């Protein structure tokens, strides 16, 4: 059995699954339940200055559903903790005493004034928290007051606030990044420049869930008006994975430890995050949708996966896929693949044909010798993977590489040596 115990910035926890800073970590009651269920750590619901903020007493959440009401995406307009700071600090102190083997991280959000950091950082550290996480990502409400994403979108602010925190803290400082930027690297570099110990990402994505089809107002509203919220859940995982991989594969940011957040619902999602460079992961939406019990599958599934891969610890998985991520221009243009349909598995739904016909390269038949049959026409197939993507039968359509002869589509011989856009004759900027 693989050992799931995790060490992140020297903070030990029995597994790499932390609950992200959010409603499930707002008070001792919930956190006790989470630790009883087996979670490795929590990032406490973001603390702020007293007096506490107030939340709306209307809907805070909205969901992007599948037809059977599975949650595809989720958004919220809840702010940071609305409880007095001392109440939270007492709870945190108690939790750290009761659960010394679990990670307890204090998420904080403070104004861009050094005095605030000087005053609150030592007070919070005194609870016994293992680290700080700086909330520079919350995209709603707090950002209107110059905090949260308003800081995270300006690298200079990230650096300045992080420096203040580092100045008054003796425990590690994690900078939580917002995805509401065009390029994640400048914020990551700013955190590094301020000597942050790690980054965590992503926070939620700016979003409006939908319109109310009766009232034709946005949905949901509080007294007829609504405000954009932060989008999370399975739908945002690919956004998170891209940003994590960018930091992990870029030379000057690759050494920053990453805590991965975004759309983790089962162990496979965690494998995605870890393999693309995260050292541990944080989960919120899945716990809000299913409760804390999902930790059983997360830990059990990850453990079985590591066993199957012959790995004995989580750290052996971290970053394994990073080297496979590159710029488009370095993709091998001499590599030729064709789709191939396994007729024994094909159920003849014809989806591959119609999407290839309507949206791709007219490379799949619908009739062969007068009967319904779906076959790839190699002379037309560009290997785009659309048919594989829409086929309802797992493993029915696969991509097969051509390694010799000629490509029936182009009539060009197959070259086994790699050649990419940087040297392609059609590229006016090619390397000569």
């Amino acid at each position, binding site marked *: 059995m693989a050992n799931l115990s995790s060490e992140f910035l020297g903070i030990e926890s029995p597994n790499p699954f932390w609950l992200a800073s959010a409603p499930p970590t707002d008070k001792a009651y919930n956190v006790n339940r989470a630790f009883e269920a087996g979670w490795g750590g929590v990032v406490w619901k973001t603390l702020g200055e007293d007096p506490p903020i107030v939340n709306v007493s209307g809907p805070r959440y909205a969901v992007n559903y*599948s*037809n*059977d*009401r599975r949650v595809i995406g989720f958004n919220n307009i809840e702010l940071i903790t609305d409880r007095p700071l001392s109440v939270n600090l007492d709870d945190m102190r108690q939790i750290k005493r009761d659960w010394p083997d679990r990670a307890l991280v204090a998420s904080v959000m403070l104004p861009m004034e050094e005095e605030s950091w000087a005053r609150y950082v030592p007070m919070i550290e005194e609870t016994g928290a293992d680290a700080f996480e700086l909330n520079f990502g919350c995209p709603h409400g707090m950002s209107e007051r110059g905090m949260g994403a308003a800081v995270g979108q300006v690298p200079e602010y990230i650096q300045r606030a992080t420096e203040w925190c580092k100045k008054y803290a003796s425990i590690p400082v994690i900078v939580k990044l917002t995805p509401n930027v065009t390029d994640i690297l400048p914020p990551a570099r700013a955190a590094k420049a301020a000597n942050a110990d790690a980054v965590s990402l992503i926070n939620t994505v700016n979003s409006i869930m939908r319109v109310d089809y009766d009232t034709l107002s946005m949905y949901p509203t509080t007294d007829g008006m609504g405000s954009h919220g932060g989008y999370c859940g399975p739908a945002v995982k690919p956004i998170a994975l891209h940003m994590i991989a960018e930091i992990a594969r870029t030379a000057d940011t690759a050494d920053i430890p990453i805590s991965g957040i975004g759309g983790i619902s089962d162990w496979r999602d965690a494998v995605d995050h870890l393999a693309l460079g995260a050292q541990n992961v944080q989960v919120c939406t899945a716990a809000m949708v299913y409760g804390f019990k999902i930790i059983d599958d997360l830990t059990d599934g990850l453990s079985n996966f590591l066993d199957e891969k012959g790995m004995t610890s989580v750290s052996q998985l971290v970053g394994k896929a990073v080297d496979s991520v590159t710029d488009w221009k370095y993709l091998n243009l001499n590599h030729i693949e064709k789709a191939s349909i396994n007729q024994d598995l094909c*159920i*003849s*739904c*014809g*989806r591959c*044909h*119609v999407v290839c016909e309507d949206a791709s390269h007219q490379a799949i038949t*619908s009739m062969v010798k007068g009967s*319904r049959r779906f076959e790839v026409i190699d002379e037309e197939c560009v290997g785009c993977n659309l048919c594989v993507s829409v086929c*309802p*039968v797992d493993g029915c359509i696969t991509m097969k590489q051509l390694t010799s002869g000629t490509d029936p589509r182009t009539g060009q011989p197959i070259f086994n040596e790699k050649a990419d856009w940087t040297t392609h004759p059609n590229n006016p900027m090619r390397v000569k």
Partner: protein
Amino acid sequence: MTNHLPADIKSGRLSSPEIEANFSDMHPPLERPEALIEADRCYFCFDAPCTTACPTGIDIPGFIQKIRSDNVKGSAHTILSENIMGGMCARVCPTEELCEEACVRNTLEEQPVRIGLLQRYATDSIIHNKLQLFQRLEDTGKRVAVVGGGPASLSCAHRLATLGHRVTVLNGAQKPGGLNEYGLAAYKTLNDFAQTEVDYILDIGGIDVRNGKSLGIDFSLADLREEYDAVFLGFGLAGVNELRMDNDRVEGVFDAVEYIARLRQTGNMSELPVGRKVLVIGGGMTAIDVAVQSKHLGAEEVTIVYRRGEQQMGASRYEQDYARTSGVCIRRWLAPKRLLLTGDRVSGVQFEYTRLADGGELEGTGDTCELEADVVFKAIGQQVLWNAMEDTAKMLELEQGRIAVDDNRKTSLPDVWAGGDCIHDSEDLTVSAVQDGKLAAMDIDRFLGMKNGSGE
């Protein structure tokens, strides 16, 4: 059988609540959450096999997609524009042999999308609320006579009416609907759905229904051809095949079709006479319907006896299973030979065992057996009752006792079309009858247009 039991036919074997429970909906309708999940199972196939399998060619993935997006009105329109009796067909179609058999999900998991129930979900509220989805074209002034009030006739009438023609439906029965009203098992069409659907169909306007008007009695085909621009014949099969045993007209022997009609029309099913031991002779849907309903009414032993094997039975495998799980015993390879009588009442039937000879024809083995019964139902098929319509029979080309038609359901006469059970090669299904009526109406419309064009 030396000791014949006394005949034991009586009503009230079960209480009204028991009967009501037995005759509840065979397939309860889907609620919205179920329908959305079921609709999600549809793969939206290209050139969908289910649509190809539907005799009326309903765009099934199309209507299911509209259920998925909560566009129920659009979904109903997709269904009803191909099949105006989509509501009844959702209840009575042998979907397991048509659309659902063709569903590609069968290959993957042996569980097709429940197309019939989704079709019912899409159409029920529209039909019950009489939400009119069709609009008549401008009146053409053309008049068409439709003979019969069943699915073929009403489908033809509706399509003709939407195309702007004026239709007169001459229906022999007291209510329109045909076998939907008089012939289907009660648990397939609850709460007077047949009449609700007829009302919906007639709501389009331009259709004048005259009940109690029979061809050959109240009017002749020659009259209609004289008076109308075109004629559609959809009078069905009024004659019941006989058992051809020398003594099959004794007490206790019933005609299944007649009994079902009585069951459908009675206000109180607990008043129907029910046997203690019931034999049903036949192998089609009517046999299943009368057997299951006898069981539901409290008969103790119900046995369907069919002279050939399972493969040859007209009733679908699903219907056969349904009968068995309802407590009906099905026996095969037995041909009725002789009724056994106690006094002047039936008390059983003697059967001869059968087999297929080398040439494939059915032959008796010579061995016999006797089964006790106080009620025997004849359910061995129906035929056109030409006796009363000899003039009509003389005017039309017939094939094996039924009306010969071309692909457009046109008869040998230039201005007469026919459809439903009375035509040769009919599939004896509601859905096929609807298609006959629709095809005929479209051909009639072309015919009437040509008449205009030629200046008549």
